């Protein structure tokens, strides 16, 4: 019935005074302003002191291994806490080693901090791998990190002490390596690289590229397919 209806509407209106809309609008505006100010000051990427490593000479500013004359570059965006990355490493590293030794391909590794959850294990291990690259032992160190990966992410496994010990396992003798790891020399660099990768559209690890073009992880993990793709790219 019409009269009842209009009464219901007017009660409803009196229940939501206009000022309550302004309250919500104000809360939203204040929240965004506060959020930007607070989170900007807490962002590692914004606050990072970036030191450029001498080894970062890959086309995507990653650590680069192999002969300059090699016609193909295989790039991996990886996180040392990422289980799929460790499985890929196991599957393809003999092929990668072979392709690099034969001068058919160079291997570039862009170490990212994607999987930290308020922790710094991805960040510090990635930065340590850059220290190892500067010490000329990237592949060895990568191998030690991936083969000794903890089964649980962010469990506190990758302490600086362990990262330094892994360096010795990889054959790094230069004492500068331990300093590089302990002082987090390349933390800022890794944060910058992680942000840059995200801007380039890398949303997951591992992401594999051959001469800048992404290939599927399953193709990368299959030696025959990987070799075929490298040969195809070198023509």
């Amino acid at each position, binding site marked *: 019935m019409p009269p009842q209806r209009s009464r219901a509407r007017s009660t409803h209106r009196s229940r*939501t005074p206009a000022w309550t809309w302004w309250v919500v609008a104000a809360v939203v505006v*204040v*929240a965004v302003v506060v*959020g930007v100010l607070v*989170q900007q000051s807490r962002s590692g990427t914004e606050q990072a002191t970036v030191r450029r490593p001498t080894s970062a000479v890959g086309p995507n500013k990653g650590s680069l291994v192999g002969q300059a004359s090699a016609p193909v570059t295989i790039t991996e965006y990886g996180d040392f806490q990422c289980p799929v990355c460790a499985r890929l490493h196991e599957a393809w590293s003999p092929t990668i080693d072979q392709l690099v030794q034969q001068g058919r391909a160079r291997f570039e590794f862009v170490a990212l901090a994607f999987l930290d959850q308020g922790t710094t294990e991805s960040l510090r291990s990635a930065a340590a791998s850059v220290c190892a690259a500067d010490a000329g032992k990237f592949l060895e160190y990568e191998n030690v990190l991936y083969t000794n990966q903890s089964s649980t992410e962010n469990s506190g496994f990758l302490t600086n002490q362990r990262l330094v010990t892994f360096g010795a396992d990889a054959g790094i003798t230069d004492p500068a390596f331990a300093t590089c790891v302990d002082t987090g020399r390349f933390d800022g660099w890794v944060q910058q690289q992680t*942000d840059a990768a995200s801007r380039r559209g890398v*949303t*997951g690890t591992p992401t594999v590229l051959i001469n800048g073009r992404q290939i599927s992880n399953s193709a990368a993990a299959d030696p025959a397919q990987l070799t075929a793709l490298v040969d195809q790219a070198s023509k």
Partner: protein
Amino acid sequence: MRASDTLTPPRLPARWWPWCSTVARFVLAGVWAWAGIAKLGDPDAAVRAVRAYEILPESLVKPFAWGLPFVELGLAVLLLVGLATRPAAWASVALLLMFMAGTVSAWWRNLQIDCGCFGGGGQASADAARYLRDLGRDGLLLALAVLVAVGSASRLAVDNVTRT
């Protein structure tokens, strides 16, 4: 007979609806608080998660990623205490519809991302089940938000005090 059909069923609900609205408010407040706090931990992961949707222009990615958790916390507080309840519920409806649109859009474009709803960097191998789960959850929350927005005024709310 006809009269009893129409009269008896609404009688009980009439008393219970305000409490349903109260419960819905608390559930929504809890989810917003959880979602907001989870996104606070890693500002850089929040930026990556928003960027992974490939919807917003780069200039808006950071304001969105950093403002969103605080907006969620603001709505959580309003809904918890019951201040500006209906507008806060409508804002929740708008936010949830936006999230659902983002999810559908990512699914449509076959993006391999995690929603980043409760923190994280938006990275995962997403599949249909995951997208459906996210949409289902958002749909349930949407129903609660609509209930609070248009239903009976809820009990245990600051609004009830300020009105008098």
